């Protein structure tokens, strides 16, 4: 019964990830009008599940026993999942593309401190550094790729219409890659704390994580999509392709390294990179600032809430 409740809590976090982050995968593609949101989320769902099953185990290990190396109790895992899920729900409601990775890492850290477990601070520092490094890396990649692509297209002597069409398809394919990378990086966030117990088979956990993310994308993902696609900087077709390709590559790289990074930060970094080539004026600074505030607040609040909620519940019920 307790396992079922924990799996439910993990699925709830997964649902939140899908609701908040599906927009990151397809926001730019939908935003520039290449495909309908309905078709886009179906693609997201398929590739998220594939990514979580094939490449999701690296991050799951980090969340499971990478930050807090010893086994936690059921209540601690439940509180970690509840707090991180709750913050992402709030962010989704207010249409802020926040980071579920930061929320879950914050939640696990808060629980680790509350239970007095040994915290792997070196790992934690690497993760926190990656949160800064990932968007910068992706921004640079997007800047370079967009610059090269525009140079290449200008030299092409093929009909513009065909080039636009080809780029459109590439943008859709890159959206699939982002979805794959998101599944690889974020399914572990949803079910990683449960993996700490070592009771359920990792592939089953990743399957639950992937499917719940897909359900989140299908049921509640549209709200944030508008912010990512149009709110930061309006993108053209090559811009959408480059933004998605760069962020997907960045996330995939960090997934293989087992570091949970923010899908939101990756895509926002990529969109900013594209925006810089077009001229900084096209970037909406207000939207970027709102997202940055969300990034700082999410892990901190998740950690503090998890810490106090665990202390309260432990003292009250046990």
């Amino acid at each position, binding site marked *: 019964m307790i396992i079922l409740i924990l799996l439910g809590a993990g699925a709830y976090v997964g649902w939140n990830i899908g609701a908040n982050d599906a927009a990151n995968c397809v926001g730019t593609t939908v935003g520039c009008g*290449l*495909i309908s949101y309905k078709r886009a989320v179906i693609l997201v769902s398929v590739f998220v599940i594939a990514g979580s099953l094939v490449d999701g185990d690296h991050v799951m290990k980090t969340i499971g026993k990478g930050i807090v190396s010893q086994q936690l109790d059921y209540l601690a895992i439940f509180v970690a999942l509840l707090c991180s899920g709750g913050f992402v729900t709030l962010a989704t409601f207010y249409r802020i593309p926040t980071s579920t990775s930061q929320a879950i890492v914050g939640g696990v850290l808060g629980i680790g401190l509350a239970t007095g477990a040994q915290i792997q601070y070196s790992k934690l520092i690497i993760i926190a550094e990656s949160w800064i490094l990932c968007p910068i890396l992706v921004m640079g990649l997007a800047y370079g790729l967009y610059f090269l692509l525009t140079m290449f297209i200008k030299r*092409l002597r093929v*009909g*513009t219409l*065909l*080039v636009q*069409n080809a780029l459109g398809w590439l943008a859709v394919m890159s959206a699939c890659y982002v979805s794959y990378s998101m599944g690889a990086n974020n399914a572990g966030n949803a079910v990683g704390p449960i993996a700490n117990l070592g009771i359920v088979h990792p592939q089953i956990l990743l399957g639950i994580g992937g499917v719940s993310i897909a359900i989140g994308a299908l049921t509640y993902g549209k709200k944030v999509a508008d912010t990512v696609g149009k709110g930061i900087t309006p993108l053209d*077709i090559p*811009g959408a392709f480059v933004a998605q390709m760069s962020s997907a590559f960045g996330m995939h790289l960090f997934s293989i390294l087992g570091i949970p990074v923010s899908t939101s930060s990756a895509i926002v970094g990529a969109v900013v990179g594209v925006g810089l080539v077009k001229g900084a004026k096209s970037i909406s600074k207000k939207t970027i600032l709102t997202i940055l505030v969300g990034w700082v607040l999410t892990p901190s609040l998740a950690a503090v809430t998890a810490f106090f909620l665990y202390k309260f519940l432990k003292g009250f019920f046990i």
Partner: protein
Amino acid sequence: MILFKKEKEVIELIEKHADKVEECVSTSLSTLQAYLNGDIASAKKLARETDNLETQADLIRHHVRDKLYGGAYMPLLREDVYKLVESLDKVANAAEKCCDAFLNQRPVVPEFLKQDFLTVIIVSTGVIKPLKHALLCYLKGLCPMEVSRQHAKDVGLIESKVDSLDWDLTKNIFSSDLTYSHKLHLKICVEHIVDLTDKAEDAADCLEVVALKAMI
């Protein structure tokens, strides 16, 4: 190359459509020249040919529409492509209507106005050349996008010239000793000629918007 086969077929069809529209406009020029020279028999024959060419252009447009909405191009581009073809088709429609107006209503063009009419007709129908160049530049990448946009701008310049000629001709018509009904009738015919350039300018504007969207 198998890649984008449907899309390439659409481009071929648009090229064919542009050829038909050009032919239709050229034939309308011959029709109106024959009419003004008093060769009504030839004018009638040429007008029928203009009608026929317009119908052929229409059929190709339908074919393009079927191909587009049968899955060629992404939805975002599909609408732009069809709007472009539709706007080009309206040039052929205008050419046909112009011939029909002359052959059906048989306006009597006085000798002292014939040269002015001929000038407006020649300049107006000449708009099809830069329009077609702009279109082919865009579709086939035969020239840089800036050149395509320059051709589209040339269409606008011709339209301005036709407007000026229209102004002078209208003034000449209304300052003549013709009856008021005769003047009005001639003015209606002038408007038909001018409409062809207006429609060409609309098509060029549509092309410029599509080209601008593709520029990065």
